[in-house]
C-alpha cells in the first residue's frame, strides 16, 4: 500500500497512523502530544496536514492511512496553520531559554525557528504559574513552560499506572501538578523528563550541569540489569574539564525498552565518573604471579561477549579455573523493565559455557594460591591472608593489586539480554586512561 506525501510516493501498511508513517520515513512533522510509545492524544494540534479531498487541515496523529491518500505537510496554508497553533502554545511562555535546561533540544525552540518567527501579539501581562517546583524523584516542574501536551500525565496513568500527575485548572490557568502533599513516586518517574518536549519537566540530577549542545552521544546498552535497555551515553570533554558522562537517555527499541528507562538505570551513569586508585600496568609482574600452581579466576557476568571470550581463552592457556557468579537481587525485579538478574550479560556467560557453580568456585578458591578477579563484585572487598589477588577492575577494590580497565562507556562489545537478544554497544569517542581488558590480556599471552 502506498500514500503520496508532498508529491512523493511513500510505502506503508494498512492500519498505520499517518504520523507514524511520516516519522518512520523521516518526513518532518512537528508534534508535541503524540509519542510513538504513548500513542495519540490529539490535544496539541501541531501535526496538522493537508489532505486532498478534506475541507480542513487534519491532525496526522489521528488519521489512518488509506490507499493513495494525498498529503501535504509543507504548503503555505498548512504552515500558516502551524504558526497560529504555535503562537497559541507560546502565548504565556516565559521565554526563559537562558536558564532552561531544555534549550537546545526543545521542540518549542525548533518549531519556532521553523514555523514561528512572529512578533508576540499579547497585549496583557503573561499568566504567572509555579516555577522550579520539586515534584520528587529528581523531577523539577516549571508550569509556565508547559504546553499541556499531557505526555507526562499519560505516562503516569497508562504506563506506570501510578497516576501522580494531572492537569488542574482551566484555560490559561491549566497547569500540570501533583495532588497536595503528594510526590511523584515511582521507580520510572524520570522518564517524564525525557518525554516532556519542552522545558517544563527537567531532571534535578542534570539540572544546570551542562548545556546540551556541548554534549556528544554514544549508542550503548544499560548495564544495570539483564534487560539490556538501549541508551545514549551523553558525555563530553571540554578545555576546562576532563571527560565526564553527564546522563543516560533512552534509545528507542521497540523490542526491549520502547523509549523508557528505570530511574536506577538512568542514574547508574554516576559510577562511570568515579575515580579510584589503581596501579599502573606491568605485564612482567603479572606473568611472574601467573607461575603459581593453583589459580582461580572469577569473571563478572556484566562483561561483554568479546571480553568473556578473551578471558576464557586466557584462562585456558594458563590453566586457570574460570568461574562466573550471577548477580541476583530479588527486590530489584519488577513486572516491566527491571529484572532480578542485575548483571548485564549472564546469558552470555552461559553461552560461553563458563561455570557458574558457587560450590565449585568456593572449592577452587580454597585450594588456590592466586586469585584473578575480572571486575566481579563478589571479590571486591574480600581479603585473603594466604592468597595473592589480582583485580582487573572498573571500580575501587579494598585489597590486592588493582589494575584499572576501561569501563563500558569506553568499550564496544556485544551483550545478550534476558530474552536472548544480542545487542551491540559502542564506546565514547575519547580514549580512556585505563587500558581495555582485551588489550591487557594480549600482553599476557
Amino acid at each position: 500500500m502506498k500514500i503520496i506525501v508532498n508529491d512523493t510516493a511513500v510505502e506503508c501498511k494498512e492500519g498505520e497512523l499517518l504520523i507514524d508513517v511520516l516519522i518512520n520515513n523521516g518526513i518532518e512533522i512537528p508534534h508535541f502530544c503524540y509519542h510513538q510509545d504513548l500513542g495519540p492524544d490529539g490535544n496539541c494540534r501541531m501535526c496538522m496536514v493537508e489532505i486532498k479531498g478534506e475541507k480542513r487541515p487534519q491532525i496526522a496523529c489521528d488519521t489512518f492511512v488509506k490507499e493513495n491518500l494525498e498529503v501535504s505537510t509543507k504548503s503555505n496554508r498548512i504552515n500558516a496553520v502551524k504558526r497560529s497553533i504555535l503562537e497559541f502554545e507560546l502565548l504565556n511562555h516565559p521565554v526563559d531559554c537562558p536558564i532552561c535546561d531544555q534549550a537546545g533540544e526543545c521542540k518549542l525552540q525548533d518549531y519556532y525557528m521553523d514555523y514561528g518567527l512572529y512578533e508576540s501579539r499579547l497585549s496583557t501581562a503573561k499568566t504567572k504559574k509555579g516555577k522550579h517546583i520539586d515534584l520528587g524523584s529528581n523531577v523539577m516542574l516549571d508550569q509556565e513552560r508547559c504546553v499541556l501536551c499531557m505526555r507526562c500525565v499519560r505516562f503516569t496513568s497508562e504506563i506506570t499506572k501510578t497516576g501522580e500527575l494531572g492537569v488542574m485548572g482551566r484555560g490559561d490557568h491549566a497547569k500540570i501538578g501533583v495532588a497536595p502533599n503528594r510526590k511523584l513516586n515511582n521507580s520510572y518517574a524520570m522518564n517524564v523528563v525525557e518525554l516532556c518536549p519542552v522545558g517544563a519537566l527537567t531532571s534535578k540530577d542534570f539540572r544546570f550541569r551542562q548545556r546540551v549542545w556541548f554534549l556528544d552521544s554514544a549508542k550503548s546498552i544499560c548495564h544495570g540489569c539483564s534487560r539490556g535497555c538501549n541508551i545514549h551515553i551523553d558525555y563530553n570533554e571540554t578545555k576546562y574539564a576532563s571527560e565526564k558522562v553527564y546522563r543516560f537517555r533512552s534509545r528507542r527499541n521497540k523490542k526491549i525498552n520502547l523509549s523508557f528507562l528505570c530511574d536506577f538505570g538512568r542514574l547508574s551513569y554516576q559510577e562511570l565518573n568515579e575515580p579510584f586508585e589503581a596501579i599502573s600496568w606491568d605485564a612482567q609482574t603479572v606473568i611472574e604471579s601467573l607461575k603459581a600452581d593453583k589459580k582461580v579466576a572469577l569473571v563478572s557476568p556484566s562483561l561483554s561477549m568479546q571480553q568473556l571470550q578473551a578471558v576464557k581463552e586466557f584462562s585456558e592457556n594458563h590453566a586457570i579455573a574460570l568461574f562466573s557468579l550471577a548477580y541476583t537481587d530479588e527486590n530489584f525485579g519488577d513486572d516491566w523493565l527491571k529484572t532480578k538478574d542485575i548483571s548485564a550479560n549472564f546469558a552470555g556467560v552461559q553461552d560461553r559455557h563458563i561455570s557458574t557453580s558457587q560450590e565449585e568456585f568456593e572449592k577452587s578458591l580454597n585450594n588456590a594460591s592466586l586469585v584473578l578477579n575480572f571486575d566481579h563484585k563478589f571479590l571486591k572487598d574480600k581479603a585473603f591472608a594466604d592468597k595473592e589477588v589480582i583485580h582487573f577492575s572498573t571500580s575501587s577494590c579494598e585489597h590486592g593489586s588493582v589494575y584499572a580497565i576501561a569501563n563500558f562507556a569506553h568499550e564496544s562489545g556485544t551483550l545478550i539480554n534476558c530474552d536472548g537478544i544480542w545487542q551491540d554497544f559502542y564506546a565514547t569517542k575519547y580514549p580512556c586512561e585505563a587500558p581495555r581488558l582485551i588489550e591487557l590480556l594480549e600482553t599476557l599471552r
Partner: protein
Amino acid sequence: MGIKVVKRHGGTFLEKMYVQAVFGGMKTTLKHFTANLSDASNIPTLCYPEQLPTDITPRYRGVHRLTHRKSDDSIACVACFMCATACPAKCIEIVATEREDGVDEKMPAIFNIDLLACVFCGYCVEACPCDAIRMDSGLYSVIGDKREDFIYDKAKLLSIKGISKEEFSLAK
C-alpha cells in the same frame, strides 16, 4: 555589465625615470620634518605610559566586566553559556549553579575569562541575552607576571567599573 577602461599611468619616459615621484615624496617628508622641528608641541605622539590616551570611548573593546542588576546590585549573569558558545578562543569557563536567593534560578558558580587566550572580538557581548557581560571597561592594558594573573574570575570581573553611561545591566 560593461567594462570600464582605465588609463594606465607610468608609461611615459619621464615617469619611468621616477625622479619626479621621488622628489614629490621628499617634498611631503621635508614639509612635515621642518614643521615638527620648528614646533615640537604639535606632534601627535603619546609618551606612553607616562601619558595615557584620552580618546578611549565606551565602544572600545577593553577588558570584560560582568554587570550587576539594577534592582539589588546582584550578578546579572544567569550562566546560559551563550558567551562561552560564541567564543572562538574558548577562553570562557563557566560552572553553573542553582541560585538560592530567589532573584533567579541560575547563576554562575565559576566564571573565568582567560585574557591570554581571548582575542577581544566582542562576540560574547553580542551573544549575551542578559547584558551581563560587557567590554566597556575602557581597560586596554592587562598586567601580570604569572599566567594565573591573566585569568579573571567572577569577583574580579564584577568589580570592574564601566566607562559608559549605563552602569547596570539593561536586561528586563
